[in-house]
């Protein structure tokens, strides 16, 4: 075995920009160079030019599953692993498998392939990145349900941005290249508007730039430990590593808080912790859901019992060497309780030496 397989992701900003086409184009080039390459999964969407690009490539048959009386087809990861090619092409990285599949997410299937020493080339759209979920919602009004944790994409060896201008994409839609005419018309009125596409495209550009920079930083980490690239190093103020603490509750807005805190932590290269203080039986399911969401994003989670929320947070933050506390906005108190402090006010007072970030909900 030659160790873990490599991962390459073609990143786009919407369906129809040509990710799959580019991926298959590369597959053809590799095949011509004599690589042992197979298609593990490919979604034709009835696009002629794309389908033509699969010609001559070996396809591992999909696995058929029955769910709720309907037939579904998924990648047959085990068959791909048995076939053990050098490289496998796997479309739609963010896809969620039908219940009853071996693994919940396709990216987990891809990991299994990599574990087996197979290099994988895959595709995804920027709106499936967990950290951008709220921004995508704010910009487009669409809440994307199928998400991939950022670390999964960060781990890719290569990320390539597939660009097409929104105008060209809308032309393609009009010509019926991407979807059937009827579906295309609806798409152009809803999701594929000029502003939505432009906003998503900007996110994809910035994210790719960020990933390129992260790779550069990692490569140069030994040489410039703790230094921000481009920032003049100041010997008088050694850069202290930031530690971010996210304060979770059972409230739905905690999901936004987690994503936002983690995104900031990732960008400033801070450690990221999450804590919940409170009666373990109260709101248990909601809190546990947020905790497991945080853990999926590789955040270090803690639960502290007790009723003195602000006191416990301040104490924990101090013990953990936290530099920044992330909190949601406190719910407004009823008027007859206005003389009391909100949790945010209490934390501000008790952790007065720390920075505190209050995250507002991102609405449309």
């Amino acid at each position: 075995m030659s160790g873990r397989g490599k991962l390459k992701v073609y990143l786009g900003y919407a369906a129809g920009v040509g990710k799959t086409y580019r991926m298959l184009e590369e597959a053809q080039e590799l095949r011509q160079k004599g690589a042992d390459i197979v298609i593990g999964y490919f979604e034709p969407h009835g696009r002629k030019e794309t389908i033509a690009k699969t010609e001559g490539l070996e396809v591992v048959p999909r696995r058929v599953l029955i769910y709720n009386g309907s037939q579904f087809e998924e990648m047959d990861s085990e068959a791909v692993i048995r076939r053990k090619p050098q490289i496998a092409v796997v479309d739609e990285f963010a896809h969620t498998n039908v219940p009853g599949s071996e693994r919940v997410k396709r990216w987990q299937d891809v990991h299994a392939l990599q574990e087996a020493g197979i290099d994988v080339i895959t595709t995804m759209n920027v709106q499936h990145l967990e950290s951008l979920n709220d921004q995508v919602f704010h910009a487009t009004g669409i809440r994307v349900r199928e998400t991939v944790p950022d670390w999964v994409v960060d781990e890719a060896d290569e990320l390539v941005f597939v660009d097409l201008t929104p105008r060209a994409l809308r032309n393609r839609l009009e010509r019926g290249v991407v979807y059937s005419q009827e579906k295309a018309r609806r798409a152009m009125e809803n999701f594929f508007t000029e502003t939505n596409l432009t906003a998503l495209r900007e996110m994809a550009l910035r994210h790719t730039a960020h990933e390129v920079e992260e790779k550069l930083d990692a490569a140069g980490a030994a040489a410039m430990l703790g230094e921000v690239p481009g920032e003049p190093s100041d010997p008088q103020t050694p850069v202290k590593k930031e530690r971010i603490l996210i304060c979770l509750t059972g409230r739905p807005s905690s999901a936004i808080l987690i994503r936002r805190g983690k995104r900031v932590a990732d960008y400033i290269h801070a450690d990221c912790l999450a804590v919940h203080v409170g009666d373990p039986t109260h709101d248990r399911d909601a809190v546990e859901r947020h905790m497991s969401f945080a853990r999926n994003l590789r955040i270090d989670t803690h639960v502290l019992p007790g009723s003195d929320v602000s006191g416990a947070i301040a104490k924990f933050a101090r013990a953990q060497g936290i530099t920044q506390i992330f909190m949601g906005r406190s719910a407004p108190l009823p008027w007859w309780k206005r003389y009391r402090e909100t949790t945010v006010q209490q934390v501000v007072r008790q952790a007065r030496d720390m920075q505190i970030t209050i995250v507002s909900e991102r609405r449309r």
Partner: protein
Amino acid sequence: MPSVDNVRPNPEELLRKVQADERRENRGRLKIFLGYASRVGKSFRMFDEGRRRKERGQDVVVGALQSGVTAEIQGILNRLDIVPPIPTRHAGRDYQVMDMSALFRRHPQVCLIDGLAYDNPPGSRNPHRWQDVSELLDRGIAVITAVNLQHIAEQQAAVERITGKRASNSIPEAFLHEADEIEVVDAPPDALRDRQKDSSLPDARCLAELRELALLLAADVVDHQLQEYLDSHGVAARWGAQERILVCLTPRSNAADMLRSGQRNKLRFHGALLAAYVEQADLPPKDRELLDKHLAMAREMGAEVHSLGGSDFVESILQFAREQRITQLFLGHTGRPGHSWLARSPIDRLIDGAEGFDVRLFPHGSAW
């Protein structure tokens, strides 16, 4: 924050907009392929788009080529009409000058022009090829062209820092912003180097840095386009994908900490850093002095400094944050409860009013 607000432009603005629209309507469309280095494949992508357009029935003509055409590109060129550029020799240098009069006579729908940043020899119709392109556009001819990062004038200093080299010819970045569309041609540095054993290419690390620069430049162009589109459709500004940080300065705030964090976030997120203060008439001289020191510091750290009017600190800041599409607001706090138990403190009111941005509170430091 409501993302759709009606804004009413004043009459002069409207007139300017109408005139600009008219000019744009008769002008040919400009599309630019942007690459971060040679060999990323922009010329191929440009000519391939020309081929597809021709297959769809558009009248496409090639106006300029670069030397050293690959076999792939030659295959496409064989199927396209070419108006050959005129080889010209001047002061010992060879130039390829676009045959403008032939192009005007031929008047195609679409003209493909490789090497946008080329210079013309002295005595030519225009000193630079991008000016030739501009003339074609004025005559209603659509242009598809390609350019590399190192040829964008405003990016040349940054490129030189990375590669140690500076290209002699360039186009103004404003020309990029004028384009109706720009498309990024992205490829990992390894793919480039395998493509051709080209000794003039910088090493992998430099290429990665150039790649990041090109992606961020494109993101900025796209951001401007989005804002322009929203403005021209009477839609108020809304957040783009860019992080925009606003540091609120007061005499007693810990400005140094806030600005340093702001600058760091600006660099990390490739965002914008703004600083604002609300004018106060009755500021004691000592506070005035402190505030001036903070403002000078902000300018020194590259923040865009704004002075806000208005009688209510909170309202002024909230309105400014909305207008400027702020995503992170930095504010100093003393950690002491507000002066009155019943009145909400300014900080509480700011937090309550924050729609779509985070409020980050900084302790005032030991002195306060």
